[in-house]
């Protein structure tokens, strides 16, 4: 056992062992780029699935007389309704940003890898396993509550959904801590935090916001789990609506819903000036705006479940945060508009998907915060209306468009070849159209009295029924947009054959792009 008995030349290349190849490399690697790509690839697939679930729930709502024609009953409808929301938060948007940041941020800071490469690997696999548990358990009768009573088996499945969601949250938190540590500790010497690239800064802010948000959701899950596993659910774990979902719905409402979109500002803050060939004026102010928006997106305090009948949402703080968010995002829009004014925007030329996508994502986010501000103003009485879902859909669409813009802009860090520009524009256009139609129909329906909860409120009157049809079209466009983005990304994610026709294209295109910028 003693090494002093060994010859000094004992350490050879063979001792280091060969690096695995193929599928084994994907499983065992802790390379931040591969882990980031894996996060994004799986998130895109899950995103298509979640958007398809959204289409089904929208189609079901077209016929108010029978909520069981497609999905098979009120409980199934509620499961899909909650799955759509929870999946877009935990299984799609947050991991998409996490994957993009893992692939891009270390390179921007001059680092070879993340601060904790193995933790990144573990966070991806734990997130993947947790996601599978969530999806399988929901389709096995679980989910985040029910509207029409539950059997013992369904209660077990609900428990499994909660545990899967808990595992997903732990994995996302691990990834967020990893990213924050990378930005803080691996940046070059002499570079202050406010000087790091805006996307890296926005991910640091997002990580902090998620650290303030997701543990609260995990605590909610623990409370529900403990009560649900008891002999008789007392109060917190009542499977029937609003028992379980009522404790988690704050995640998809203001202000916590804005935590999904903080990186959008960082993406646009980098891409727009870069594509216009200028430097962002008052960069420190832009970074401060991102930080302020992150501060306004901390939302664990606003949940109303434990304070009923008193409601935090009636207080001035809640209203003030909701109104301040729109002001902050509009200020960032102003910074981007100033960049566009000073840059070389030519309206007769088709903008690149990265430039158009990042700018449109911020505009859509501004729209979301505007309707969010209307939602919190008391006289409108929109808190329990479908406006809530409208704001959520707008934020999600902005996040998806922003991520697509980031992938198309930083493709050398993520893909093997440049993705098709026309497909990028198509994906951005479809996602934008889908997000706008979904958000607008829900917001307007909210003003007309449509409730946010399933089959609650005036959801089937003539005007609202028409808006439901518009929402169906919007959700279909969202699915198509995600499919277009996923197809373009998957096609270019595969490495070229060394002797294939595309060999060297990536490097050449990278050089051209570098020269152009």
């Amino acid at each position: 056992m003693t090494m002093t008995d060994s010859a000094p030349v004992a350490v050879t290349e063979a001792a280091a062992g060969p690096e695995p190849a193929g599928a084994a490399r994907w499983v065992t690697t802790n390379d931040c780029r591969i882990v980031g790509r894996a996060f994004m690839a799986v998130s895109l697939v899950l995103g298509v699935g979640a958007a398809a679930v959204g289409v089904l729930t929208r189609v079901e709502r077209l016929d108010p007389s029978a909520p069981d024609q497609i999905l098979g009953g009120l409980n199934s409808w509620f499961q899909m309704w909650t799955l759509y929301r929870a999946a877009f938060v935990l299984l799609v948007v947050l991991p998409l940003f996490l994957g993009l940041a893992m692939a891009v941020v270390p390179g921007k800071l001059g680092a070879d890898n993340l601060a904790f490469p193995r933790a990144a690997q573990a966070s991806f696999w734990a997130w993947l396993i947790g996601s599978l548990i969530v999806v399988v358990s929901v389709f096995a009768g679980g989910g985040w509550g029910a509207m029409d009573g539950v059997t013992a088996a369904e209660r077990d499945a609900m428990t499994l959904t909660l545990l899967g969601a808990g595992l997903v949250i732990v994995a996302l938190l691990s990834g967020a801590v990893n990213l924050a540590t990378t930005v803080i500790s691996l940046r070059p010497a002499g570079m202050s935090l406010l000087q790091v690239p805006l996307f890296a800064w926005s991910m640091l802010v997002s990580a902090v916001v998620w650290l303030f948000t997701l543990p609260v959701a995990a605590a909610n899950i623990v409370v529900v789990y403990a009560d649900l596993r008891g002999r008789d659910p007392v109060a917190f774990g009542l499977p029937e609506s609003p028992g379980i979902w009522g404790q988690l719905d704050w995640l998809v409402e203001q202000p916590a819903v804005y935590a999904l979109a903080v990186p959008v500002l960082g993406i646009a803050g980098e891409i727009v000036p870069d594509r216009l060939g200028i430097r962002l004026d008052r960069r420190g102010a832009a970074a401060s705006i991102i930080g302020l928006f992150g501060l306004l997106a901390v939302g664990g305090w606003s949940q109303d479940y434990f304070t009923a009948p008193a409601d935090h949402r009636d207080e001035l703080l809640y209203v003030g945060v909701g109104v301040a968010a729109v002001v902050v995002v509009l200020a960032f829009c102003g910074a981007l508009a100033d960049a566009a004014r000073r840059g070389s925007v030519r309206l007769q030329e088709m903008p690149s998907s990265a430039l158009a996508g990042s700018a449109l994502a911020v505009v859509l986010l501004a729209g979301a915060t505007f309707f969010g501000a209307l939602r919190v103003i008391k006289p409108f009485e929109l808190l329990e209306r479908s406006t809530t879902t409208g704001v959520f859909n707008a934020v999600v669409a902005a996040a998806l468009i922003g991520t697509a813009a980031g992938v198309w802009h930083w493709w050398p860090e993520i893909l093997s070849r440049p993705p098709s520009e026309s497909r990028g524009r198509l994906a951005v256009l479809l996602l934008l159209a889908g997000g706008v139609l979904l958000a607008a129909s829900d917001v307007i329906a909210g003003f007309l009295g449509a409730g946010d909860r399933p089959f609650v409120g005036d959801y089937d009157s003539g005007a609202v029924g028409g808006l439901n049809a518009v929402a169906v079209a919007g959700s279909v466009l969202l699915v198509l947009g995600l499919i277009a983005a996923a197809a373009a990304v998957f096609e270019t994610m595969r490495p070229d054959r060394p002797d294939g026709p595309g060999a060297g294209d990536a490097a050449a295109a990278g050089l051209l792009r570098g020269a152009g910028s």
Partner: protein
Amino acid sequence: MLTPGFKLFFGMFAAFTAAALVYGYASGGSHVGPISLGWKGGVGDHIGYGVLVSLAAASLAVSLVLVAFRDADSEAQAALSGADGISPNPAVASGFWPVAAAFGAGTAAVGLVLHPLVFGLGLVMVVLALVEWTMDAWADRATGDPAANRELRNRVMAPVEIPIVGALAVGVVVLAASRILIAVSALWAVVVAGVVSTLILAGAFVYATRPGQARKLIAGLGVVAALGLVVGGVLAAVTGERDFPHHEDEIHSESGAEESGAGDGGG
């Protein structure tokens, strides 16, 4: 100079000792029983206390060996291998332990609903993966040479890993094979045992005669055989045992009847 290997194992000794004391007192140990290893009083639950004390003793022994022979000492290792010392930003070796930790966490989550045994299995996976993960992380920063680091890590962990993996493999093979043999009929049990033994003998013969050429083939066949054994064992366990004649029960019941009859008669 205390070597890194000594620090690691001495830390484990301290942790296991503390765990043994806590467990001893928590499970009913008397005032000085757990401190005096049971010499002056009870230690609580003997099995758990004994396992923890044994682990502490083993860790202490390994730590003393490491510091006495300067094994797993990164500076000495670097000097021997001619490496440039410890890199400030070392490359992190790839591995599957983080994946195993994630699978363990998922298994534990599912086990909370399905069965406590599954939950325990998941926890064991997590703990094992974290121990291996810790050792990998330590080895990454030991010297500036990745090959030397891997060698260093293997020197410390291989004496622990190989016996554990061997014991697990033997346990799985024995368990799975026994489930299969008691699930099929007596005749088929003989046939299965004969065929499997013949296959093992043939594989070993081929490997011995052509070690280089047949290595991949044997490895592939080994994986297939292991999977078949595990799947077959699970299926056999689900199916249940075949009907065995219960001679002992009959004897017991007969003798019991006789005894009760005698008792009645005597009464």
